[in-house]
C-alpha cells in the first residue's frame, strides 16, 4: 500500500490555501491547512505531517518565525522538515538559522517548483 504523505500549510491567504490543496492533492499528498502560527503548531501536534510549509507574515501576535521556533523547540515536532514559502526575500538567513530546511519566494517559484521541492523533503 502506498503511504499518503500529509503536508501542513501554515498560510493565512485562503486563495493560496486553495492552490496548495489543488496542486498537492494532484501530486498525491494529503493537505492540511492552518491560518495562524498557534493553529499551525496545534495541527502539527495532531496530524504529524511529513512536511510543513510555512508563511512568515501571519495574522495575530505570532508570525512564521515564532511558529518555526516553537516547532524546532519541540523534540517531537523538530523532526518534521519545514519549508518556508513567503514573499519576503530578505529573511532566508534568519529562517535557515532557526531551523528551516529550505526557503522559497512564492512569486519567484512556479507551483511545480514548489511541489518538486517538497517531494524529497517529505520522505
Amino acid at each position, binding site marked *: 500500500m502506498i503511504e499518503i504523505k500529509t503536508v501542513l500549510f501554515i498560510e493565512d*491567504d485562503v*486563495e*493560496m490555501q486553495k*492552490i496548495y490543496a*489543488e*496542486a498537492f492533492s494532484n501530486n498525491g499528498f494529503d493537505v492540511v491547512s492552518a491560518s495562524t502560527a498557534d493553529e499551525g503548531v496545534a495541527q502539527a501536534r495532531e496530524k504529524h505531517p511529513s512536511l510543513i510549509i510555512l508563511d512568515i507574515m501571519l495574522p495575530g501576535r505570532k508570525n512564521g518565525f515564532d511558529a518555526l521556533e516553537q516547532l524546532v523547540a519541540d523534540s517531537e515536532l523538530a523532526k518534521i522538515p519545514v519549508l518556508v514559502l513567503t*514573499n*519576503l*526575500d*530578505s529573511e532566508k538567513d534568519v529562517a535557515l538559522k532557526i531551523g528551516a530546511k529550505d526557503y522559497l*519566494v*512564492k*512569486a*519567484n517559484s*512556479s*507551483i*511545480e517548483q514548489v511541489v518538486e521541492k517538497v517531494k524529497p523533503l517529505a520522505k
Partner: protein
Amino acid sequence: MNDLEKYQKYVKERLNALTPIFAKASIGDFSEDVEIPEGEDEFSELYAGIGIMLEVIREQINSLKSAKEIVEEEKILDDAILDSIGDGVVVTNKNLNITLMNHHAQMMTEYTDEEAQGKHLFEVLKAVDEKNIPISYDARGTEEAIEKRKKTSVNYFYLTKSGSQLPVSVTTSPLILGDQIIGTVVVFRDRTKDLEVEKMKNEFISLAAHQLRSPLSIMRWNLELFMSQNSSLPKKEKDKLDSVYKNVMRMIALVNDMLSVSKIDQGKTTHQIEPVNIIAIINDVLNEVEVVAENKMVGLAFNHPEEEVFVLADREKLPGVILNLLDNAIKFNTLLGKVEVNITKEGEDVVVQVSDSGIGIPPEDKEQVFDRYYRATNAVFIQFRPWALFS
C-alpha cells in the same frame, strides 16, 4: 644781549611754541593747529610746512577712520549674511587651517569659532562613513578642489565634537586670488531630513512591492495549474492565456526590480564574494533567455576560453547582472538580429562583453546608462523595464 644771543632767544621761543603741538602729536592727537607767526622769516615756512603736514595727517586719519568703519560695516554685513545661510560654512587658509566658521557650522559641528580657529580643517570636520570608518583624505574632495581648482561635492558623515554622526552634503571650493590658491571654502548641508524622507520612500516601496507579490503569486500559480490541466485548449484561447501569464511574469519581474533598487538605496545589499564559474553562470542565463530570443528571432552566441574561468563575484547576484544585459540586448534588438557574449582574459582580469546588433545607445547618452530611470533617447518605441541595468 648781543645779536647772537637775541637770535638764540628768538629761535628758542619759536621752537617752544611748537612743543605743545608735537607733544600732542606724539600721543596721536593731531588736532592742534599751528599759528603762523606774523611777519616772514625762516620759521614762517617751517610753521606753514608743519601746518600742512598736520592737515594731511588729519585727512589721512579721517579717511582711514572711514575706511575702517566701512570694513567694520562690511564685516558685520558679511557675518550676518554668513550666519543667515542655513548651511555650514568653513573658510580655511591655504594650509587648510580654519580662519572662519559661520553660526550654522558651529551649531552642526558643536565647535565654537574660537575653538576651531587655527585648527586643521580635518581635525574639526572629521569625515566618516555610516560605519564610522574615516573617509580617506583624497575621497573628501578637498584635495581635488585644490589640485584641479574646481568645486567638488561629496556626501558623507561628520563626527561632531560630542562624537555623534551628522549626515552631510559637502561642497568644497578653492579660494583663488590672482593665480594663487589662498584657501578653501567648505559649505555643508545637513542631510538628516533627506535621509529620513529617503528611508520612508524606500520602506513604502519595499512594503508595496512585497504586498504586490501575493496577488501576483496567486495569479501565477492559478494560471500554471489551469494551463497544466487544460493542455488541449484551442490555440486562440491558449495564446490569450499565454499572454496573461507572460504579463504576470513581467509584473513579478518589475516588482523584483523595484525591490532590488529599494534594497540598494537602503544600503541593505550585501555581497558574498567567492570564486564562481563565470562560463557556467552565463550558460545558465543564456538558457533562461533562449525562448525570448527565439520569439524575437534573435541569435545568441557565446565565445569563451576552452578552460573553466573563475571570477570573484556574488554567486546569487551575478546572474541578475548578466540577465539584465542580455534581456536588454534582446529586447532592443532587431528581428533576426544577433547578441554575442564574449569572455576574454586580460592579465588578472576577466572581461565579459555583451554586444548586440540592436539600436545601440547614442554616444551622448552613454554616461547616464547607470542612472536609475535612464532610457536612451532612441528607445522610446520599445518596451523597457526602467530599472533593468540597475542591479
